């Protein structure tokens, strides 16, 4: 056998500690098991305690004679079983006193070998079996429990929860998920050890609760816990109990807040994991709600979930069958007395064969979450390029159109190549495509994103920063950012003209853009008043129902033609 082959757990002799002062018994035991096990002998309780303390990691079993000089065997057993570090070690007690058997088993001995001994082969078989069972038990102990908190892990939790269902079929039961608000910031601020300490305290609080009220609990993820318990009414009280004593020591602050999702009186006819999915969904509704940290699952969530599943399932077919249709909303340059059509924004709608028109507010956040947005964006860019090409060829109009570029697209190393290919296929000039990139995208991995955006701009694509002012970018970034226009966040316009009109912030934003010599675009403009104010404040381009709602491509074509007829309204390079 070469050295590598021998480096196997199965080839190693397990070590057995024999605590026995009688030489005859020692020799007989060594003769019985010495070929299979590495037998270490201690002749007193004191010696044994020292060996256990120093070598417990490598011991597979302890054989303990009860009749020892000095510390008695029964006290050695008590001391082993009361120390959490060693208590997992299996102990077989050896004695001629049959009456001691029950006491030893009660104290945690795993088996009993009588004296005089049985035949060697009987002893060996018994010890082999005991070691095997103990190792299985230890493996189970290590795998079913989370090492940090001692709680069950998720897989075993689900298994035991299902067992609870079997025994308590008719008991109303709640599936509860709870986690720590912004746990990563606690780790960042106070260190991982402090974070771990908080998780352990939460686990202790949860264990104390289930040991009183029943139920089981697990740590299902980094800072996420699951609790399966009898239905209760006061979840605020439960949350308070789970949140007790979580302050980070020495910080003098209490930033540790839990949030909780409850699927109350959970339907036992559905799979246990699905029940906790629902509790998680409910927990997500409570995110950042300091005043309402408990969310409850209701059937509107279930319906939303079913709809989301259907939309995801139908996505590929929708792309293939071109169920996604592009609408265009015109943008007008308002710098001169008379506004003129300068570009449009491509907006996607889903003409679903069964659900009818699906709002982008429903499917875009969903696809952003699961990454399908990349495919959808590419589809929209390609379709838009086809339309621009078509207008050029049939109408003789060259109208730039802005398309949305999602955050995830900016991480695509092939992004610039994709845009070049789209432009090339459509015979377009890069300037025909305006790329709208949301402001918040610039705050992540800024350098990489700025490089990507710079590359696109160098190739001739124009960049519009979307949702500007929604609160993420640092103003200093404006001076380094490669952008061609700032598109004000629609919420700014809505709130400026709502109730007590206050346009000061809007004016400041437009002023800021002007100082960086970047044109501003306002979207969502609906009224004469909004239009007049924005124009007076120096806004350059306006988009919104004031001019036109988003139009399907055939209607938008008619719109362009109409504008073509009143030449004054259209200051575009109309003819190639």
């Amino acid at each position, binding site marked *: 056998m070469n050295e590598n082959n021998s480096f196997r757990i199965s080839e190693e002799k397990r070590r057995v500690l024999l605590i026995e002062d009688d030489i005859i018994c020692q020799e*007989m035991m060594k003769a*019985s098991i010495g070929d299979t096990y590495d037998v270490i002998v201690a002749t007193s309780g004191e010696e044994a305690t020292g060996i256990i303390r120093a070598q417990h990691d490598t011991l597979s079993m302890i054989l303990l004679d009860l009749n020892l000089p000095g510390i008695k065997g029964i006290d050695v057993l008590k001391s082993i079983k009361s120390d959490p570090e060693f208590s997992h070690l299996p102990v077989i007690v050896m004695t001629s006193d049959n009456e001691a058997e029950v006491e030893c088993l009660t104290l945690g001995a795993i088996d009993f070998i009588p004296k005089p001994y049985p035949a060697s082969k009987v002893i060996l078989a018994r010890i082999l079996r005991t070691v095997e069972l103990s190792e299985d038990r230890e493996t189970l102990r290590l795998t079913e429990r989370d090492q940090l908190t001692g709680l069950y892990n998720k897989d075993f939790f689900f298994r035991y929860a299902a067992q609870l269902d079997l025994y308590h079929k008719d008991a109303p039961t709640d599936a509860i998920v709870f986690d720590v608000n912004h746990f990563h910031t606690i780790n960042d601020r106070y260190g991982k050890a402090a974070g771990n300490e908080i998780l352990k305290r939460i686990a202790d609080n949860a264990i104390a609760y289930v040991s009183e009220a029943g139920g089981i609990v697990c740590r299902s993820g980094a800072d996420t816990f699951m609790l399966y318990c009898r239905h209760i009414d006061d979840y605020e009280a439960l949350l308070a109990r789970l949140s007790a004593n979580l302050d980070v020591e020495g910080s003098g602050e209490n930033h540790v807040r839990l949030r909780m999702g409850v699927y109350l009186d959970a339907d036992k006819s559905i799979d246990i994991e699905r029940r906790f999915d629902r509790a998680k969904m409910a927990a997500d509704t409570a995110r950042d709600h300091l005043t309402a940290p408990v969310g409850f699952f209701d059937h509107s969530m279930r319906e939303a979930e079913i709809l989301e599943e259907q939309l995801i399932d139908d996505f590929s077919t929708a792309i293939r069958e071109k169920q996604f249709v592009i609408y265009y909303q015109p943008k007008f340059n308002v710098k001169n007395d008379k506004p003129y059509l300068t570009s449009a924004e491509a907006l996607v709608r889903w003409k679903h064969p069964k659900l009818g028109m699906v709002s982008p507010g429903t499917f875009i956040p969903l696809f952003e979450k699961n990454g399908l947005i990349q495919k959808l964006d590419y589809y929209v860019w390609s379709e838009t390029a086809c339309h621009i090409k078509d207008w050029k060829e049939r109408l003789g109009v060259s109208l730039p159109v802005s398309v949305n570029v999602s955050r995830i697209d900016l991480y695509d190393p092939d992004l610039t190549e994709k845009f070049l290919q789209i432009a090339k296929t459509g015979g377009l000039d890069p300037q025909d495509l305006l790329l709208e990139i949301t402001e918040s995208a610039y705050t992540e991995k800024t350098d990489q994103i700025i490089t990507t955006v710079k590359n696109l701009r160098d190739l001739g694509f124009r960049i519009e920063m979307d949702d500007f002012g929604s609160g993420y970018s640092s103003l200093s970034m404006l001076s380094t950012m490669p952008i061609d226009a700032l598109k004000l966040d629609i919420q700014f316009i809505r709130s400026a003209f709502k109730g007590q009109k206050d346009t000061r912030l809007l004016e400041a934003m437009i002023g800021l853009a002007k100082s960086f010599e970047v044109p501003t675009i306002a979207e969502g403009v609906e009224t004469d008043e909004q239009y007049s104010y924005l124009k007076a404040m120096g806004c350059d381009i306006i988009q919104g129902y004031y001019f036109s709602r988003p139009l399907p491509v055939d209607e938008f074509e008619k719109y362009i033609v109409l504008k073509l007829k009143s030449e004054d309204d259209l200051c575009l390079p109309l003819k190639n």
Partner: protein
Amino acid sequence: MLTIEKLKVYGADTAKGLSRCANNEALYLRLVDITVRELSSGSLGEALASGDPERAFEAAHKLKGSVSNLALTPIEIPLSELTELLRSRTPGDHTALYDEIVRKTNELASL
């Protein structure tokens, strides 16, 4: 020289004793030899003479363990009886039992 055959004739249940030594005859004979020396050392007699019932019981119990494991039946019988009497602190003169143990030990030692 001590042999398995001689032990059988003496009355030991050698099959049982050997079964506890993984049928290793040399080991069994060596352990019998050790036990005979211990029995012959006079330790049990001293303990009985000391008047300390706990010490007497411990000495008898320890020897009984070895003798029983080796299945040295002729000694095991009186030694077990003596051990139980000492365990229960039964008053009385145990000399007859002790003499029997000594006799059987001497017999074994002379094999």
